[in-house]
Every structure is written in structure tokens, then in C-alpha cells.
């Protein structure tokens, strides 16, 4: 996606599709890593789960017609719900479904549309999982990402910059999960022993935000 349809303006259907595919391949590359993180405080399947789901989602998308970004994202969400299972399935499924609802009918996303989609996604994940910031979950990467994005845009930053700051915030949020004692999910069964490990879901969520910034950055 060259300079022409740069995100200074907005993100096209093709770019959203590009992002979803980029996320799928990043997850595939980081599959063992995510599963290893899940071994330490979970049950050693997070990488396998999300990878299985994103592969299925990408396969579904190839058959998809039209340029409705909402339909695209809903398809990803539905596929994740029906192929992933575990906690990751409903959570990432809801994330994409809510993004789909927020972007229904759109063939382009202006920066504010993306901010609204991300906000809706975070909202949905919290409704589903009831996790609060600091519970050592994907929420700890997603909320900072959402807030950094909207404040950057409010400060008049370019979409590029806003996306980068959003990704940085997600990364910091992910790293901040290391010392936390988990309150939600499997890791909470470990009690104090969950501290000192990075949360796998926060890690995959950081990858999600990071790939958006990379896929949509103007300079390439």
C-alpha cells in the first residue's frame, strides 16, 4: 500500500485485509513463543490456539466478496469463535466481532473510525471476560493501546504517529504484566506464582496492534 492511499487519509478494505493477514503470519511466526509463555502460567496452548484460528480466518476471507470492512472483521470474529475455543477464542472472537459491528458498511476507515473500532473491541472483551486493568490479561495491552491512539489523535497527531504510539503503549502494557499476580484466566490459579511471567494474551494483543501500525504506516 504505497503513499497514494496513505493513511494520512484513511485505511482501505485492502489495507484492513492486509492487516488481518499480517497478524495471522505474525502469530504463526510467534506460535511457539506464545505457547511457551502459556506453559509458564497456563496450559501451553495459546500460540497453537490463535494460530489455528487465524489460519482458518484467512482461509475464509479468500472466499469473501465486496469491500465491507465490517463484514470482513465479523467473518474473522465468527471464525475465531468457531475454531479457537479456550479463552482466546471467545475473547479474540468478540474483539473482531465488535470491530465489525463498529465498522459495518464502511469500505474505508478514517482515523476516528479505527479509534472507535478499537474502543468497541476493548469494550466487548471486557464485557465477555470481566477483566480489569492489572488482572494480567490481554486487556493490559489493549486498554493502553486504545487510550494512546485516541489521545494521539486528539492531540492532532498523524494517523501514522497515532498508530505507532498505540503500538508502543500496547508493548509497555504487555511488559507491565510481568510483575503482576493474575486475577483472571488460568494464570490466576497460580496465585503469587503467576508473578514474574509475561502474559501470553497480552503478548498476542500487542502483536495485533503492532501489525496494524506496520501494515498501515505510510512509509513503505
Amino acid at each position, binding site marked *: 500500500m504505497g503513499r497514494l492511499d496513505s493513511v494520512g487519509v484513511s485505511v482501505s478494505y485492502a489495507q484492513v485485509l492486509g492487516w488481518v493477514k499480517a497478524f495471522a503470519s505474525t502469530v504463526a511466526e510467534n506460535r511457539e513463543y506464545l*505457547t511457551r509463555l502459556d*506453559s*509458564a*502460567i*497456563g*496450559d*501451553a*496452548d495459546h500460540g*497453537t*490456539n490463535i494460530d*489455528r484460528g487465524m489460519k482458518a480466518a484467512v482461509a475464509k476471507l479468500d472466499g469473501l466478496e465486496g469491500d465491507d470492512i465490517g463484514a470482513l472483521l465479523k467473518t474473522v470474529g465468527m471464525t475465531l*469463535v*468457531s*475454531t*479457537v*475455543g*479456550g*479463552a*482466546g*477464542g*471467545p*475473547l479474540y472472537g468478540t474483539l473482531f466481532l465488535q470491530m465489525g459491528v463498529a465498522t459495518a458498511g464502511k469500505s474505508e476507515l478514517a482515523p476516528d473510525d479505527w479509534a472507535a473500532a478499537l474502543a468497541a473491541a476493548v469494550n466487548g472483551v471486557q464485557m*465477555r*471476560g470481566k477483566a480489569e486493568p492489572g488482572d494480567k490479561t490481554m486487556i493490559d495491552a489493549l486498554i493502553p493501546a486504545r487510550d494512546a491512539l485516541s489521545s494521539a489523535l486528539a492531540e492532532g497527531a498523524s494517523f501514522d504517529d497515532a498508530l505507532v504510539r498505540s503500538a508502543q503503549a500496547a508493548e509497555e502494557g504487555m511488559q507491565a504484566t510481568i510483575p503482576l499476580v493474575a*486475577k*483472571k*484466566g*488460568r494464570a*490466576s*490459579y*497460580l*496465585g503469587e*506464582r503467576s508473578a514474574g511471567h509475561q502474559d501470553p494474551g497480552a503478548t498476542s494483543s500487542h502483536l495485533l496492534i503492532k501489525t496494524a501500525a506496520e501494515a498501515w504506516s505510510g512509509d513503505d
Partner: protein
Amino acid sequence: MKKLINRPEDVVTEAIQGMAAAHPDLLKVNFGPNYVYRADAPVQGKVALVSGGGSGHEPMHGGFVGMGMLDAACPGEVFTSPTPDQMIEATKAVDGGAGVLHIVKNYTGDVMNFDMAAELARGEGIDVEAVVIDDDVAVQDSLYTAGRRGVGTTVLAEKICGAAAEEKQSLQQVADLCRKVNENGRSMGMALTSCIVPTAGTPTFELGADEMEIGIGIHGEPGRERRKLAPASEIVESLATPVIEDIPFEEGDEVLAFVNSMGGTPTIELYVVFNELHKLLEDRGIKITRNLIGPYITSLEMAGCSITLLKLDDDLTRLWDAPVHTPGLRWAA
């Protein structure tokens, strides 16, 4: 990784194909979405019991499908809860018009997926009740956490509620009974070794030759505490004491004692454990009137055991003794 398998990705599919080949008289298997269901389903006018969860706990749940226990089971990937569409399809396949009870082990993933399934099934006009089992005393309970895990009591609840359903009890009655079993059952487990998730290929946690994990779950999660290896008598003491004191179980109580292998621990050791448990309960004036000893809710090839105690009354005892005919549990039939 040393396992009797082919490709790690195919373990779950091939295992349920094996079940279908071995038990055509008892069950059928549907693929895409995957679920195991009673050969004679739907049983008209009977409340249907549907459970499910990650695979790797065999015989639970698929091995408990049959007369007097489950009508359907949804096997997820190893240690990964199944998906809502498996649950919806299974629910539709076994609904005999008297409603469907979802028996759900309390794990974030299981609960969220079963919630989605129940919402959708109700949307299609099926009367669905869900009961969440959370009997693991190793986990400190709290409103702000995921709460306790569902472990050994699940097996007992599936047997007892299955018997009640065969008696044509109503959905409300069977669901209340399931809650009663959950309230009266408590468990705790330990591991001598880790297990290996096939697709991961390496042990989920590392344990020294002289170490054990106390308070583990059934997904290879490390436990609450790592300790030096100890004699069976001490291990039973540290599992049974928190179990007994949680409800609490008291002098004069009659209980079902369930000594479960985590998968790699052989029968001879289970009887050594049961012998210790029997002495310990006798000293406290608690009477074991029923027992179950064997690998029924496992964690792949993990060596270790769990102890579950269920407080019995005449009703629960009668339902426990009622005929059951499944691949994993069978008597009086």
C-alpha cells in the same frame, strides 16, 4: 515426546475415531463440528446432559457418554475448551424435548464458550440450563478472580445427574441436583511429573527428581506449591485435609471417596493412596460408603493423583448406584 500417537495435530480426531470404532453400541461421533453422542439419542422426554472441555482428560467426557450418564460430549483440542458451535450442534442432536443441561467445568474458556452456546441455543428455542462445577480447593476462591477450577466432582456429577435424568426428573430438578453435588464435593490434586501437550512437544513444567507439585489442576498447570517428594501418607494428608476442612466434612458423615490417577500413575499406587485415605477418614469418624478408584479425569500422561470427597445422602447414594453403561463407567447394566 514419547507418546503412542501419529501427528500431534491429529491426536484428538484419531482418539474419537477410535472411540467410535470401539463403542458403536453406545455412541456415535460427529465430525465438523466434533461431538460424541448417545447412539440412541435423542431420548424422548428425558433431560439431555451435555458436557465437554479440552481433550486430554480421557475417559472424561466422551468416555462418559451412554445410558445413565451423558447424552453428548464436546471434545476440544488438548486442554482447550471446545467451541460454541460444537456445543450448539450437540445440544440440538440430543434434545429430547425435556431440555438440556450443560455441565461446565469452571475455566474461563469453558464458561465463556458454553455461555455463548447457551445464548444461541435458547435463541433457537431449546430449554438450556447450565451448571458450573468448581470444586478444587487448591484455588482460593474470590469474586474478583476466575474462581475455583472444576475437577473430580465433575465425574460424580455427570454420573449422578445422568441417573436422575434416566428417572425422567425435570430439567430444573436435574440442574438443582447438579448444584447440590457441586456444593457437596471437593477435590485436590498433585503431580509427580508434568505432562506434555502433543502440539507443544515439551513438558509444560519442569520438576526435579525429588520434587512434586501440590494443588495442580488437570491441564498441566503448575500447582500452588512445589515440595520435596514425600511418602504417600504425607501426600494424602496434604490433599485430604484441605478437602475435609473446606465444606467441612464432619464426624458421622458418609462420603464417596474418589481416588483418581492423573494418567501416568498405575493402579497399585492408587490403592496405596486409598489405603492411607481410608485410615485418615476413619480417624476423623468419616465413613467411606462408596468409592471410585482409577484414571477417570486425567491430565494426559501426568503421574500423580487427586482426591475427591462427596458428602452422600440416601438420594445421592441411590443415584450413584443406579445402572450406568458408558465406555468409562459401567455397572448394573
